[in-house]
């Protein structure tokens, strides 16, 4: 039972979406709508699961007084503060006339979003710019034909996609200018390579999906 039912659910849900593609008639069209709605709701619970697991882990850390327990405390405080702000703002919004949303400008939730969430999430990825630069200097080497071609192509794209490329090559005829090189590179060789990768990945996806639906692949149901 513990094994069979999930396999049946996987099969039914998967096949419903495949059949829906070919059969427009009721009830297949209806199945697809119901499953899409369910998917949206289950997805929300899946995110909740992630957040609640994080809370559980942090609480365990604090109760066990493991070495970085103050960090866990910070996590919990921040989690609760934005959740409470969002809940209150949302609840007030329901009673307002006309109704307002918890993420409207001026709410506490929006304040946290603008001044805490946005700078932190943006900066987390922004610091990568520094690492790209240092890797350019210290690691990216034309050590073989493949890497050489890659770096040449990168060169044309990097210089051709910003106006400085045309500034430097402005003396050349229109079709020889660097932006034109970059356009050509993107439109043709890049498309070709991307397409080969795309078709390859698509077939890989088809075979993985097929294995999952037929229960040949069941690693997701273990553990």
């Amino acid at each position, binding site marked *: 039972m513990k094994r069979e039912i999930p396999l049946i659910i*996987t099969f039914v*849900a998967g096949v419903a979406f495949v059949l829906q593609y070919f059969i427009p008639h009721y009830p297949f069209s209806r199945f697809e709508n119901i499953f899409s709605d369910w998917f949206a709701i289950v997805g929300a619970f899946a995110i909740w699961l992630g957040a609640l697991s994080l809370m559980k882990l942090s609480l365990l850390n604090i109760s066990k007084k493991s070495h970085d327990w103050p960090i866990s405390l910070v996590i919990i405080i921040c989690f609760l503060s934005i959740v409470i702000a969002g809940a209150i703002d949302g609840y007030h919004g329901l009673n307002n006339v006309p109704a307002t*949303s918890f993420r409207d400008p001026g709410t506490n939730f929006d304040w946290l979003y603008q001044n805490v969430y946005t*700078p932190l999430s*943006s900066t987390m990825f922004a610091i990568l*710019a520094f690492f790209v630069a240092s890797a350019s200097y210290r690691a990216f080497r034309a050590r073989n034909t493949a890497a050489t071609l890659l770096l040449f192509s990168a*060169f044309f794209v990097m210089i051709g996609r910003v106006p400085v490329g045309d500034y430097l090559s402005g003396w050349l005829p229109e079709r020889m200018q660097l932006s034109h090189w970059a356009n050509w590179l993107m439109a043709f060789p890049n498309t070709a390579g991307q397409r080969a990768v795309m078709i390859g990945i698509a077939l890989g996806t*088809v075979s993985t999906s097929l294995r999952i639906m037929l229960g040949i692949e069941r690693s997701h149901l273990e553990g």
Partner: protein
Amino acid sequence: MDSALIGTWLAALLTLGIMSFIYKDNLYYKVCEAIFIGISAGYWFITYFWDSLYRKAWVGIVHQGDYILLGGVILGAMMLTRLFGKIGWIARWPLAFIVGATAGLKMMVYFTTNAMAQVHGTVNDMMAAFSGGDLYDLIGRLVILIGTVTGLIYFYFSKEHKGVFGGVAKVGTWFLMITFGASFGYTVMSRMSLLLGRIDFLLTDWLKLVK
């Protein structure tokens, strides 16, 4: 002090805190990171609550009597059993649903749009370029055809890369490398843009050095 000013200073301090990582992994960074983890988990939690669970499920079931949505809620609630060790196996049901539905939809969309339509596009464009169009376009389309075919041959694992076949696969790798080079250039562009956004914030909104 108004809340906007406090907000800007807070945002600036948090920005600098994360940036301090490039000097060295330190406590300031660790605290900022913890704030980020907590805030973003809470952000997702409450957003999904209002947008999906309230607006879609609660209102749908209670106000509009769309009881079929209850199926989704039950499956979703099963998901949360993961938090309670012993009955955690129940969570496999909704997981099976998610994995199955995704597999079914992905199988169709990838097979049609990313495989068949790409083959169609390659052939169709080539034909169009043959029958009319300038030399520039013809060469470009030919490049796409050769690149796609040789690239696919590189990813063909059932034959050893020897002789003519090996040569063709080699051409395929060249195309792939040019493609990866383009991605490389674009990724560098993206990373610089992100940092640019933060520097703009620090200079314009916080220090007000630039308009």
